[in-house]
Every structure is written in C-alpha cells, then in structure tokens.
C-alpha cells in the first residue's frame, strides 16, 4: 500500500462468521432480527443507557426486507396516528447523519400519488385534508398539475394526484450500518450469521427468571426478548408457543441503468402497487404488485414481475421504453389484516416483546418506532401505539384500518 493511502480504520462492527466472539452467557435484552426495526430499538435502548443488548441476525446485515426495499419515506397516510408518527420519523431521518455519523442519501423530492377513478380521487382528497390538519403540506392536484412536477408522465386517464413535497427517499443500506455501528459503539453486541433455533420461557416457578435463547452458535439467557424478525416473526413467536397473525407476501422490485437526474418525486399509482423513484445513483428503482400470490418467504425473482412492471412503467412514462433493466430482486412484506404493526407483549408472556407486521413500510417507521420502544423499555411512559397495536386487538376485532398502503 502506498504511503499516501489512509490506513484502514479500526473494525467497529459486524465481524464475519469466522472471527466472531462467542455469545455472552446473558444479556438484559436479546433482539432477534438485525433488520432496521431491531437495530433502531437497540440503538435507542443503548442511547438511553440500557446497552446490555445482544442482537441476533440469522444472515448478513440487510439480508431481509430492510435491505431489499425501495427506500421511500412518506407522510401521506389515512390515519392521524400514522401521519403524526411519520412526521416525527421524517424529522428523525433528517437528523440521522448528525446522530449516527453516516450519510443515508436522503432526498426529499416528494411523493406523487396518482388516482384513476373518482373513488380514488375522493380517497386522496379525504386523506389530504386529514394530512393538512396534521401540518403535512399535501396538495391534491389535477393531472395537468401533476405533469408540471413530472413532465414525462402520460397522465391521460388519470383523475387526480396528491403531492407532498417533504416526502422522499433514502438509501436503505447505510441506514442499517448507521444504527448497527451506533448501537455497537454504545455497548450493544451484534452477532450476524446466528440463527435462533429455540427459546425457553422463564422457569414457571421463577416469575423474574430469564428466557434462554438457543442459537446455531450457542445459548444466551435474556431478561427480555424482542421479536423484530419481520416476515420471519411468526416463526420466532412459535418457538415460545405464540401464534402471530402476520403473514409474508413476496414483493418484487427492479433497478434500471443510471440516468441523468430528472425525476424528483417517488411516483405511485393507487390500486396497482406501482411505485418508482430515481435513486441518488440515477437508477429508476421501483415495483408493482403481483396479486393473488400465496403467502411465502421465498425471495426468488420472476419474469412475470418483470413484464408486469415493464408494461406499467412504459404506459406511464413512454420514454422509459428505451431504458435498460439491470436487475430485479424480491423481499417479503410482513402483512397484517388492518395494515398496522404488532407491538408489545403477547397476553401471558411478559418480557417477550413483539415489533413486527410493518406492511412493507417498517423501514420508514423504524426511526420513530425505535425511539418510542426504546423509551418505553428504558422505563418511560408507553406511547399510545403500545395500547393500540397489540396482538390482542386481532381477537377483539377492534381494528382501525390503515388503508394507504402501496401494494
């Protein structure tokens, strides 16, 4: 190495499988799942002084949905709770580089939702009014006005659009590394390539006893366990005899060759699940729903996605016809029937915390969910989400549905 090359920095996080230290015998908190949700909770807990944390990730960082999503971050929702949470999440993302020392390539180019029918226009108008009452700058536009924002769109056949300029996109991978490094620097320990195989409940005669989490690399005792395994969370919950209602749905996505920057907002078409944006590298990145799939954790890529997506893109932006597709991949949405996540402790199993069911938008919600989860577990007052988004709500039928879901 030539003298003027800077020396490699000291390793700080995520040693590979060969050189990982052994699991400690015990940790106050074991987080199952090194995705953005688990890492965000871990960093927040550590930040609040509860840094005796071990995070168990079955594969490499970004192997699951956290490393496979489109990086969108929006405040256009249909319920006040989600709007307010996402306003706070956007504010936290804007501070991410200052808080965690890594550039996540945030670009606030807005989200532009397109509606074809009068019913969909009504949906956008109603939600825009609610969003405006919360202080979000969403405007309902005519198709011509949408064309002023993205002149390349063929808006024939559309009835209206909704646009909020402060929504945006970011690059998912550094977001994970930022939380991981931040948590590790504060004392948390991250073990990748560590598969959870069994979980023993605390002994029946010891109400304050530890869980024992068995893994492919040994066992670890834990005062509390957090199930942040995303689409794999039902498998983890089953290890302690808890049945979760969230189910995995494959969503596919593609990336094109890089183009000169031209597209400011994320564009999405209601009802089809079509969304696309231009990344900071210039690629068009986006997906579309393939309806009628069975529940699966399979992440294989399919030609029928490529053809469906190509047709949807070329119809909306005819100039995309000449753009080359570079690659496609898939990741699982972790889907609940009411479109909201599952949080808190299941009935009868204290200190086993759920944080799953994020419907494909766990990435954008992680900053705010991690903050409130961390504050609660560090001894603070629980936010209302922990009363509302319980596992028990599914049995009671008290479901307040979030309907602003892409796909």
């Amino acid at each position, binding site marked *: 190495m030539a003298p003027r090359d800077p020396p*490699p920095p000291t390793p700080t996080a995520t040693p590979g499988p060969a050189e990982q230290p052994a699991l400690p015998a015990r940790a106050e908190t074991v987080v199952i799942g090194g995705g953005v949700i688990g890492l965000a909770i871990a960093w927040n807990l550590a930040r609040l002084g509860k840094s005796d944390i071990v995070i168990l990730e079955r594969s490499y960082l970004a192997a699951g949905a956290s490393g496979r999503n489109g990086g969108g971050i929006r405040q256009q929702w249909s319920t006040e709770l989600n709007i307010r949470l996402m306003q706070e999440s956007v504010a936290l993302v804007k501070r991410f580089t200052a808080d965690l020392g890594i550039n996540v390539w945030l670009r606030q180019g807005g989200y532009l939702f397109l509606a074809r029918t009068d019913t969909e226009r009504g949906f956008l108008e109603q939600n825009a009014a609610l969003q405006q009452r919360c202080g979000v700058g969403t405007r309902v536009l005519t198709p011509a006005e949408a064309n002023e924002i993205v002149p390349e769109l063929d808006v024939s056949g559309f009835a209206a659009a909704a646009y909020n300029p402060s929504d945006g996109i970011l690059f998912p991978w550094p977001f994970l590394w930022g939380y991981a490094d931040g948590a590790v620097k504060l004392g948390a320990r991250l073990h990748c390539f560590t598969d959870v195989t069994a979980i023993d409940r605390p002994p029946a005669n010891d109400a304050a006893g530890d869980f024992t989490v068995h893994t492919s690399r040994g066992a670890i005792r834990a005062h509390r366990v957090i199930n942040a395994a995303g689409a794999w969370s039902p498998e983890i919950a089953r290890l302690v005899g808890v049945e979760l209602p969230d189910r995995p749905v494959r969503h596919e996505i593609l990336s094109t*060759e890089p183009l000169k920057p031209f597209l400011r907002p994320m564009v999405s078409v209601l009802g089809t699940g079509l969304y696309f944006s231009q990344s900071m590298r210039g690629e068009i990145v986006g997906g579309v729903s393939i309806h009628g799939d069975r529940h699966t954790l399979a992440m294989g890529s399919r030609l029928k996605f*490529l053809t469906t997506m190509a047709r949807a893109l*070329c119809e909306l932006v005819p100039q995309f016809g000449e753009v*080359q*597709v*570079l*690659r496609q991949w898939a990741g699982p949405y972790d889907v609940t029937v009411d479109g909201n996540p599952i949080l808190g402790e299941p009935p009868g199993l204290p200190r086993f915390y759920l944080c799953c069911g994020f419907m494909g938008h766990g990435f954008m919600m992680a900053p705010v969910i991690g903050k409130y989860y961390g504050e609660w577990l560090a001894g603070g007052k629980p936010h209302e989400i922990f009363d509302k988004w319980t596992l028990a709500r599914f049995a009671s039928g008290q479901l307040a549905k979030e309907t602003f879901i892409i796909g």
Partner: protein
Amino acid sequence: MSGKVIVCRCEDVTLHDVEHTLARGYRDIEEVKRYTGFGTGPCQGKECLRVVACLLAERTGVAPSAIAPFTTRPPIASVPLRLLAGPGAEDLTSARDDDATDEDHGMAG
C-alpha cells in the same frame, strides 16, 4: 496505490474500498457487495465478482472454493423495458414460473 486499482469498473470500486470493507470486519461476499456497491452496475458482477472473490480468499485465508458467488440478479443481460412490455411478453412467463425460480434462487433470494 490501492486507491487507483479498480476492481469493479461499472461502479468505480477500488482495491482500497475492498480493503476498507474487510478492515471493518465484513467478510461475506454479500456484505462486501453491499458495502462497496461492486457488482451492482451494468455488468452485474460478470467482470468483478471473480476478482473480488479472489481478493477475499487471499486476504481472509478462506479457500476460494468456499466462497460462493453472490445471488445472481435477473435478467442475465440488460434488457430495454419496451421489449419486456411488448405484446406477447407475458407468454414468456410459464405456469411454472414461481416454482422454477424459487427452486433456482431458493429462500435466500
């Protein structure tokens, strides 16, 4: 010097970038791909994957035969969207599509 040796020409990833990634403790080829961006450009790894795999073997002492390539992302070569969107494109999709690709790609994707 290592800052001027290119290992991935599409994404301008240098030898130094890979060394930096290894120094941070990332060892798995999927991690190195994500941390450096190598193999995510127009060639999709056809030029650089072998080079980076050899580097990993050399620098970590792992046998080259133990380093699996990262998951191949279709299409095998870049395709203009209009060809995939054209009439008849859906006929390319066989009824076995789901099962066939899941078999090929496995659960790991």
